[in-house]
């Protein structure tokens, strides 16, 4: 007499409800659009930048400090180079920084956080004290100290940032794991004989991956922000490699007369960070997770 019930929530035709919810979040869409647009422009920079040959060792002092015009939409800098071209290529430096820092910091932090949260004990105690100590250090100051100690270059800055960054993920993942490992389903999986590896990577990780993703998106903007600060202080990419923070720092010397030299690169940083933040906020709402 029991009719086989139709499972609820069977896929319906038409829009996926997740995409519908995301689509309703206009800021998140704008963020996604910005990040994709800038990412694409960065990839295609050699083809879409108006003067790609000005990226290498190039100067043209006779064309220096020209205000924005049709020929130079963002004007030219003190060495006569097209600011728009340098902004487009400057994004490459920002993306590189972000990819290296997060590419090293995130996996490391997630692994350590998983270990600390799940095993507890000494692993946890040491790791968490360590993150406390790292948290007490202003990241900018530390990176500045380390980079100037080793070599004031972008590479060292990236490594120093990565060396700091894992702590945030370790902390985040540690907290998540601690709360999730008390859930009955972990207990149940353990009672049914699941291995530790299975529990960590198949049971726990899938449940926190969305939070990590949100954190990564928000952090992408933050890393770029810090990187811009570092290059503003003179620890950016080596000339002639374009670097947005360096461009702002150089241009700031000629304010307000030659405003375009600092303002456009500054807004370029801002827009990219804005993109990542809007996207991150959108994802946070979408996944309904808490990330500081």
């Amino acid at each position, binding site marked *: 007499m029991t009719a086989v019930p139709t499972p609820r929530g069977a896929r319906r035709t038409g829009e996926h409800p997740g995409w519908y919810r995301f689509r309703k979040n206009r*800021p998140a869409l704008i963020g996604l659009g910005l990040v994709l647009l800038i990412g694409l422009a960065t990839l295609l920079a050699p083809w879409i930048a108006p003067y790609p040959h000005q990226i290498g060792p190039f100067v043209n002092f006779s064309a220096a400090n020209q205000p924005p015009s049709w020929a130079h939409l963002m004007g030219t800098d003190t060495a006569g180079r097209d600011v728009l071209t340098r902004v487009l290529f400057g994004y490459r430096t920002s993306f590189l920084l972000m990819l290296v820092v997060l590419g090293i910091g995130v996996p490391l932090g997630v692994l350590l956080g998983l270990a600390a949260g799940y095993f507890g004990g000494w692993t946890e105690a040491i790791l968490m*004290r*360590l993150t*406390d*100590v*790292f*948290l*007490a*250090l*202003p*990241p*900018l*100051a*530390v990176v*500045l*100290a*380390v980079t*100037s*100690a*080793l070599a*004031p270059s972008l590479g060292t800055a990236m490594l120093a940032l990565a060396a700091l960054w894992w702590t945030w993920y370790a902390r985040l993942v540690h907290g998540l794991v601690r709360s999730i490992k008390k859930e009955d389903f972990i207990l149940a999986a353990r009672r049914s004989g699941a291995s530790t590896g299975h529990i960590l990577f198949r049971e726990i990780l899938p449940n926190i991956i969305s939070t990590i993703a949100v954190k990564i998106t928000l952090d992408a*903007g933050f890393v770029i*922000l810090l990187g*811009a*600060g570092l290059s*503003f*202080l*003179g620890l950016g990419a080596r000339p002639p490699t374009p670097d947005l*923070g360096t461009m*702002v*720092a150089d241009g*700031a010397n000629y*304010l*307000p007369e030659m*405003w375009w030299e*600092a*303002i456009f690169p*500054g807004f370029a*940083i*801002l827009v990219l*960070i*804005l993109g990542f*933040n*809007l996207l991150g*906020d959108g994802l946070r709402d979408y996944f309904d997770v808490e990330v*500081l």
Partner: protein
Amino acid sequence: MTYLSYIANKLGLALLTLFGLSLIIFLISHVIPGDPARLELGPLATQAQVLNLRRELGLNLPLPVQYGNYLWGLLHGNFGISLVTQHNVWHDIATRLPATLELVLAATLLILVIGVPLGALAARYQNSWIDGLFRLLSIGGVVTPSFFAGILLQIVFGYFLNVLPVSGEVALGVPYSGHPTGMPVLDGLLRGNWPLFLNALRHLILPAVSLALADLGQVARITRASMIDVSRKEYVRAQRSYGLSDASMTFKYMLKPSFIPSLTLLGLAFASLLGNAFLVELVFSWPGIASYAAKAILQKDINAVMGVVLVFGVFFVVTNFLVDILAGYVNPRLRLGTQAEG
């Protein structure tokens, strides 16, 4: 657990953190391959002079011994001699810290006085145009690099409108002795020196706003989020249904419970405030500790770097300790101790 043992616990953690901090700072500063002796003697000194000074400064001892000396010195308030200014680093820091403190305090005040109520208001009018405007403002604050915000403010208020000064702490024509607090705004207020107070205040506005923006946005967002979170709580629904007024709900009965996460964030925000102070002080030629540190770092002034980063770290740890205590006060469960529940 009682409040007292809660405090003691937090204090223990803070001390432990400080110890780790000193170790890390020491290690970082001692992988610096620079030569402070060379620096002190000036560019034209001979190698023999340099070697002599290295011995004098103890730079040729093994690292653990140097760390021991360092810690011993710290405990006696001796941060070493700054190789650039030739002063005791502690003295350098003490003379510059008030300026930074003034800036950071002003920024904190802005964050608290504007950020928290703004977040509360946005949560109250969730999804309305007020909320939209607020989100725009707060995200604008978060995504604008503080140095760029500073530059923009300089252009608008310094150059175009020319209504606010764009560099320094007080104008030169205004006599200022640096006493008693070293913070001209406060000193002007304390001594009733209104020209000084007004002048210093005007100098403070742009740097403080640039510094505050990022964390203001962040704190406002957190306040908004936790207010919304709280607004979904059973007790808020209950209190609303009793007919409590909107204002008292928003600014009292919902704000206080949602203030706790904001408070924690504010503590964490201190690290970024101090970090951003580096940039803001440079942009505004602010005579604070961060620009001293930036210079010291670039010149590999080991003692000064160690001193400043340590002071920042201590500052941060102490602030967070205070935040914890305050959180304990706001949260009666921590203050009065939990009762064991069945």
